[in-house]
């Protein structure tokens, strides 16, 4: 799946669902510069990051039929923190989906 499709079919639906489900979570008007977690201005805090990870895993399965599990080890092995920007998250999911397919 291309990076564009990952954004359109997985990340965007996950953000929409997160807005409905996760307390205090709101997607800003300019999601292009969204910081999800770990940097100043991030929209997720330490405890609701986990909720977003679940939603993301579900959206990956819904869009691709592939089951992935996001682990601490994945994140440690990633050069750029996957939740610091949507671009990094696209790259991270692309790798995870390829590995799991």
């Amino acid at each position: 799946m291309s990076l564009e499709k990952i954004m359109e079919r997985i990340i965007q639906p996950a953000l929409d669902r997160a807005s409905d489900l996760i307390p205090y979570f709101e997607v800003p008007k300019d999601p292009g510069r969204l910081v999800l977690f770990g940097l100043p201005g991030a929209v997720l805090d330490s405890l609701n990051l986990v909720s977003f990870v679940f939603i993301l895993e579900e959206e990956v399965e819904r869009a691709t039929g592939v089951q992935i599990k996001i682990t601490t080890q994945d994140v440690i092995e990633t050069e750029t923190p996957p939740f610091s920007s949507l671009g990094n998250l696209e790259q991270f999911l692309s790798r995870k989906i390829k590995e799991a397919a």
Partner: protein
Amino acid sequence: MDLQIWLGSTKIFLHESQQSKTYHDLAIDMKALSSAMQARLRERQFFVVEAENSYTTYLRFLTLLHLGQVVLLSPSYQFHDVAYRDFLRTEIGADFIFWSRDQESASLSIPASASLPNKKFADLKQTQGYFVVRTSGSSGKKFKLVLHDLQRFITKYRRIGPHFQKTFAFSPAESIAGIETLLEVISHQCELVAAGDRLSPAVVTDLLKTYEVDYFQTTPTFLNLLVVAGQHRGDKLSSLRKIAYGSEPAQLTVLRAIGACHPQIEFMHTYGMSEIGIQKTLTNPQDPSVFQLDAKFNPGRRIEGLVEVRSMTSLIRYLNEDSLPLKGEWFQTFDHVEMEGEYWRVLGRTGDLINLAGRKFFPSEVETLLAGMADIQDVTVVKEANEFVGQILIVKVVVAPGTDAKTFHKKLKEFCERNLPFYMHPHKVILSEDSEMNNRFKKVRRL
């Protein structure tokens, strides 16, 4: 606490919201508050203080201890809970003085006579302060109220000696870890950095760097999240010399990732509980996810896989339970550990208790709060192991047939924002219109 030692001291006590207080400031404020309170207090009384990591909380707590009072710090959600107040009155058989966050001392309602029950308090020394920590038990009553002697903790810190200069108020103010952080800081006139209770890795690491904190006491979960956020890279942790963590099993890969970026950091696996305080430990430098209890300070032994400790800071007693889990001087923790060479690996306690990033509570507490939402007919909360944060909350709710799921989720989100502490927000919500399924699920949780 000898306030004379602090008078004239230019050493910083607390950094909070870009303001700093010296030990001199603290001593002056404690003297003023003591004078105001002393005139109104006729005897030892029991204070319940709404707590957060802030100067106001620390000032009130330390002043009341200085005045020889008994103090229970309480998080906001419990402080304002009528049922919890009834529970305290019933269990201890005394009237309390409740001190809310925004209330001035002059407006406190102090009963003319509110003697504490002799059975529980008569043997306490008149001029010493005592504090109470709310804990939980694996059997019997849900909450236990643990009475501690301040002096035992001060003696412990003097014996251990100063081992840091600046630390960060990470643990909740009302927890034994939060109280110990404060008491150890003041015992050696160290510096404390406080930033409220809702902390993200970015905020914390910025503050660690800004204030050049050298000792960071946290939880394994927070270290996981710090690494997930990539905050271990770069120079934000460069001032740290020691990281201490306990309360949950630690992930070796995470500790190694931090250590690889910051080889100057020593890792320290702590061990403690509300009844015995935080114990002095020796951590395996090759595998900092395992530890020993330091026999010079608090010998420990493993009997049939369970930890027993001879602690310097054991509780005096429970205020709402007559028996103590003691075998002679040995406190039975009921923590399971396994041996790894000469070291222990904590496997945890069994039971319903949820330990979410060091915050401990029961599923029933979350159920009670959620049951206040009109659209919920029945609710069951269970915990599940999670790699990022140790444990998560899964909520199963029974709703009326035909309920629109999207609308319900939005309402639930708003309800949680208004009524639940942030650490009790559910991570997964399962909707059902079938109460039978829910009842079966409850039985599973209570096995």
